[in-house]
């Protein structure tokens, strides 16, 4: 059982604390997105995620037609340390009240 102090949300990072051991969504710089289970984080938003799915979105320009081709690449990594300076947003899992 979490004590009252432990479950209170007073500052943004408290929301992340409540997401420990849950799957979260992380948006990163350079058009990268991650989904994975949060195992650790610190005040810089450095994180360790488990069972991670990474999606990279790239835009290429076709050599002949000069059209923009949007590609997404997916890959999975068992455990990943993510450096906090690349993090744009962290979204906790949706809770059904």
């Amino acid at each position, binding site marked *: 059982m979490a004590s009252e102090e432990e479950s209170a949300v007073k500052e943004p990072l408290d929301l992340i604390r409540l997401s420990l051991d849950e799957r979260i969504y992380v948006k990163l710089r350079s058009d990268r997105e991650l989904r994975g289970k949060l195992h650790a984080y610190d005040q810089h938003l450095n994180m360790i995620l488990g069972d991670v799915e990474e999606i990279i979105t790239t835009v290429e*320009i076709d050599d002949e037609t*000069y059209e*923009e081709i949007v590609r997404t690449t997916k890959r999975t990594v068992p455990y990943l340390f993510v450096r906090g300076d690349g993090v744009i947003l962290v979204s906790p899992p949706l809770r059904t009240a």
Partner: protein
Amino acid sequence: MSSFPHLLQAILTIQLDFSLCKVSIVIAKYLALYTIIYVVEKLLVLLRDGRKLLGILRSFDQFANAVLEGACERVIVGDLYCDIPLGLYVIRGENVVLIGELDLEREELPPHMTRVSAVEIKRAQKAEQDATDLKGSMRKRMEFLDLD
């Protein structure tokens, strides 16, 4: 110490492993005189803008600020490369991506790469840049077609 001249006979080699590089203090016998020689391994420094500097590391600190002696920039365009001499360089740490020890026993580059003069590499570099610029500007000119 295979790189030493034959005249030098290494008597004693002490290896110090600093956090960034290995420094060997070699006490050698040179024409019957005992001499102390410091050997600092050659390094490759990769910078944030993609440039590659080679040189001998003389000093560094906690921020990865580094002093490179006899530095040169290795410019690589396709299969061509050139080492452009730069001299003594002080590199600000925030621009450093990676500092690597070069293994002198091994070749530094794949065999099919050709060394060319500074003039030639500059020309190749410019040609590559122009090709990239052209691609970008063509895309801009096509934008009115509303391709999306």
